[in-house]
């Protein structure tokens, strides 16, 4: 049980945020976009672990937009500016901003895992959203309500490695911190490369 800050001081406030998400202060302190991506992904990983820890309780949601809301709740509780867009066809757009520097942001898609085709469609949506400029990295978070997440993520990775959809420039690479997650890079028509983090949240 976390204790609330007893005063209005910044030191106590940040100590509390750190207790909610160890990555929260990294998000705050991120001096540039690259650092923000790394910090947000750390915060995402913190949030996913918290959601997985109480999977039984959250599994009841079973549908959009419950899961993206859960993610937004987790990030927001650590003072990270996260926003869930409208859910359309089972996909929910999510945006995460730097709390002090709004120009730095990253985008994501959240969906309940229903196979590789839908995952690729989510990637397509995300790349379209990134096509107009920033950010250079986004995430695609799948909520797995059925057992077998590691195997399914592996299969997904293998599919993307084989097909290299959406002008994927290379084979998927491991994420340095998040278990089972991988990163793909895609060249946009304007020439820029956008990286996508693919990760799963195991609710089974």
């Amino acid at each position: 049980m976390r204790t609330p800050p007893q005063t209005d001081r910044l030191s106590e406030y940040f100590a509390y945020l750190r207790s909610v998400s160890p990555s929260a202060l990294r998000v705050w302190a991120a001096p540039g976009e690259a650092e923000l991506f790394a910090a947000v992904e750390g915060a995402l990983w913190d949030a996913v672990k918290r959601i997985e820890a109480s999977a039984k309780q959250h599994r009841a949601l079973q549908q959009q937009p419950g899961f993206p809301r859960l993610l937004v709740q987790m990030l927001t509780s650590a003072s990270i500016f996260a926003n869930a867009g409208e859910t359309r066809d089972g996909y929910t757009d999510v945006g995460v901003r730097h709390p002090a520097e709004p120009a730095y942001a990253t985008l994501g898609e959240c969906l309940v895992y229903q196979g590789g085709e839908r995952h690729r469609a989510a990637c397509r949506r995300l790349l379209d959203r990134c096509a107009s400029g920033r950010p250079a990295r986004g995430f695609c978070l799948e909520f797995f309500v059925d057992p077998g997440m590691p195997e399914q993520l592996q299969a997904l990775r293998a599919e993307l490695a084989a097909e290299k959809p959406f002008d994927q420039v290379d084979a998927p690479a491991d994420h340095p911190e998040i278990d089972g997650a991988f990163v793909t890079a895609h060249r946009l028509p304007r020439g820029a490369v956008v990286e996508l983090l693919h990760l799963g949240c195991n609710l089974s």
Partner: protein
Amino acid sequence: MTGARRILVFEQDEAFLRAVERLMSGAGMRVLLVRDPAQLTAQVAAFQPDLILLDRAAPGTAASEAIALLRDTRVPLVFVLANLGERELIRALQAHAVEVLQRPFGGEHVQQLVQLMDELARRPTSENITWEDQVARNFVDLAHRHKLKGTLMVNRGTPFEGRMVLKDGALARAEYGPLTGTDAVREILQMEDGQYELDASLNLPHPKIAHSATELEPGRTLTLGAGDTADVRPRLLAVDDEPHLLALISRFLASAGFDVTTAVDGVDAVDKARKSPFDLIVADLSMPRMDGWEMLKTLKADHRTSELPVVFLSAHDDYREALRAARAGAHDYLSKTGHSQQVVSAALKTITPRLETMFHLLVNEPVEVRTPAVGLQWFLRALQRLGSTGTLSLEDSWGRYQVAVSGGQPVSAQAAVQQRKVLGMPAFVRMMVAGAAQGRFVFGPVQENGPGALGVSMDELIGRACESLNAAEAKATEQKLASATELDLDPELYELFCRIAPARKVAFARAVCERKMPMAEVAGSLNIGPEQAEDWFRELLRREVLMPPAMGMGARRPDRPWTPNELHPEIVKRTDRKRAIVDHVRTQLGEDPWVPIASELATVLGLTPGKELTFPDLVKLAAERGFKWQDVHLVVERLTASGALQRRFMLARADVLSEVPATEVALRLAGALGDDQARQEWERWADGVRVIWRTSMPSET
């Protein structure tokens, strides 16, 4: 200028309509006569009157329906009253009247209305003023207009006594609890069940209030000796879920001369109060199953128990809670932390008017009867207990009532209400609803077989009358239930209701007001009985959270100034902002517990630009409202992300007022994540910086 003025007259009395039409048209005004309440909305929308004239006391439900329909219009209301008593005056003001006139309508009224319209036109149009403040202002303006003098008192002789002293139309003094001046005026005029007395007239003939000849001097209360009062000991119901406290309070009260019965919670208390009559209830506020608020409401909603005075005991000594208790109709509010003697004193003080009356009856003295102070049912039961014989005559602005009693049992009843004579049970029922009637009981023989013979016992008579009144109200509610989907929602009152009501009741209100669920379905999903659902629905109507369909006022003239009978545009704007915030939180985070927290935050902050909140504030708010502080913090962060709140970093030194940009905080923090020394420096610096959340300017959101 008067040629352009338009007056809409709503009335069903043809003679009155013709008189008004003739006089007002003669003064160059355009007059529209409306007789049918069903036509009122459309007619107001089409005619766009500058003023609406209506009879507040029109028979049936026409007037109240009309007032409800006109509640949110822009048009000032002027009530025409047959009898101008203090009760009617206050009721008119509470219904947002700007002026009252007494029948018959004559030439002098035309001039009065012209001057009134000139006055209203001069009122500022851009003030941010609440409904309650506007009622207070209307009263002050009316007092000024009529050069009113004297004292308006509310709940005289009770701990919730308030008074306003007027001298030559000016407010010389106003007091209500710790409030004074216009704050006191506002609160006094908002008393839901207040008993008002006006010791003055509006320069118009109206009966002066008959004060009890047996009234005690200020500050003096009666004391009882248990032995002396064995036959007439006041019957008190003590209610508390903590057995040791209940035993303690009961012991003290019994030793002070009360015949004490105990109940363990609100449900038990209501049940016991319905089964046998009590003189007083002393109850805890926080109880399982049914708390004190709910109990009071249930008692007030049932004619069998509506006049039973309630004294609340609370673990908190909170002035706001005391005000809420007064508004809800409680007679007193005491902190549990006080001495037991205070409870005894409060109980005695509450029933002092009844004790006085009882003692006069004991010695067969004629008694002045003020039903607001003692209660009609109580008085009749007192006659029954003492086996008295005589005639009770009462009068109010609606009519005159008389009941003959022999040996404590009713013999006959007669009433003359609005030129109609009624006999027997119907007469008695009319007397029962005359809550403000006053008069006398005179001992002496009565005619056994006269007109209006009743032929039932006192208990049966009161029971039947209550049943009949409860049934009539239930029927009216049923009719409204049938057309529930056609009712309009008052967002401000709805929000307030959701803030103060218990969670289940809020869930009920949401289901009815937002999801438009049928009543049976709501009752089923909340696992409550149909009676409970009906009761809660009635409360939504009584609190005007739900109202009959509002005006089709889409085509309002944009250049028309704001007038007192509508919500101020700023309030509407604020309501819209609150709704936007709640909707945003609902979309982003889901329903529970986020939406109630967002609604609470929006209300607490009032969304006035520049209001501040710190972390300890939100922890305190969470504790007070029963939320988890982490959840409140999360909603605060959510509102910060959306822009409704702004997170600011301020240097904490008292001699420096300086804001630290968030980018500087981020930069310093980035440096601190490097090594230990940098971290210590950061800690020192961060100890000197405050974090606050501030409501944004509208343009910032």
